[in-house]
């Protein structure tokens, strides 16, 4: 039930927006994320964007993981 999919915002009109993932688009609401802009990735749950995905933070996690992997091999 708490599934939320990262989708990219490709169109914004007030609190209405269109988000896209893998060529699939859908109408979403941005009420919770007033500073979301075109190109942002947001987590979509039941038609509502519940959080922005912070790309820098994602990269930080992945780079930590890569260095952990490098230590081993």
């Amino acid at each position: 039930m708490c599934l939320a999919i990262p989708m990219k915002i490709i169109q914004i009109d007030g609190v209405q927006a269109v988000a896209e993932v893998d060529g699939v688009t859908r109408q979403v609401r941005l009420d919770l994320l007033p500073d979301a802009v075109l190109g942002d990735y947001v987590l979509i749950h039941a038609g509502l964007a519940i959080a922005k995905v912070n790309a820098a933070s994602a990269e930080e996690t992945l780079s930590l993981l890569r260095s952990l992997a490098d230590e081993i091999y």
Partner: protein
Amino acid sequence: MKFIDEFRRKDLVQAVVRRLRELAAPAVIMEVCGTHTMSAARFGLKSLLPEPVKLISGPGCPVCVTDQYDLDKFLALGDQPHTVLASFGDMLRVPGTHTSLEKQRAQGADVRFVYAPLDAVDLARREPDKQVVFFGVGFETTMPTTALALKSAGASGLDNFTLFCVHKTMPAALRALLDSGEIKVSGLLLPGHVTTIIGSEAYEFIPRDFGVPGAVTGFEPLDILLGVEAILRQLVEGRPRVDNVYPRAVQVQANPQAMALLEEVFEPDDALWRGLGVIPGSGVRIRDRYRHFDARTRFAPILAQVPPPPPSACRCGEVLRGVLPPKQCPLFDKACNPSHPLGPCMVSGEGACAAVYRYER
């Protein structure tokens, strides 16, 4: 998919698994959220964990913790003329005492499944001669979408939309679970998407009052393994706290827009949980200014006629409290299976019994 595929990379998974082996100590870690349960089962993560580390399922499947009595009441409304029962698809096959949404529909009731609560409001707009009742199930992740639906219904002055609210809130339930002392958990994988709404600060009481480590965790394999790693690390260090291993989505503070929305529409209330009973302050009711959209109020005379459910052989309650592993239930894979589920844990896409049946049998 971006932000998904990277968090499933095999080489990185292997690296974290090795790290887990270094930290391994006997630990029982509860994945609080049903979405974690299903993800861990689907990706076979339990088999990757070092031997002394056990993952058990908790009360975080909203469909599963919806009390039978609430479901029976909602289902009873389907017998009313010109009434549409609107619900998330997750509820389709969950058995009530006498029927389910699936059976109601087969017998001619008007049952519609929606992707979003706002879709149910649109339905009410399009079909003004019908009474649309939406079954509002879900935790904090889902509550803002329902709040938006009520606001939208209010703005349109709809007289044919109501919410049957069974929403529940996570922190009070976790406190009740830990307070009961019934199950000894070494740490909690905390629900990442609930936390996008309420902020990780909502769990500070867990290490403070119970000395139990927590990790706010995302839903991809690497996320879940990092959550386990954070808990093991806290255990080794002997310093319980709330780590956030899902920082790409979760912050310490609540989402202020979400909180304002919830505050406007709902007020805290006690809630009835399957398996946990009534937990003070663990749910919400609709505020007076939106009471017009409260199905429990509008249909009170009908609902009052629904009898409380008789005792059931289903032991979902114990499964949800982490006391009974699904395979140890005497009904599991015998009287109870996905074709003939006796309770929600076997039928919900996120139920602990369904996850074990599908992936770990």
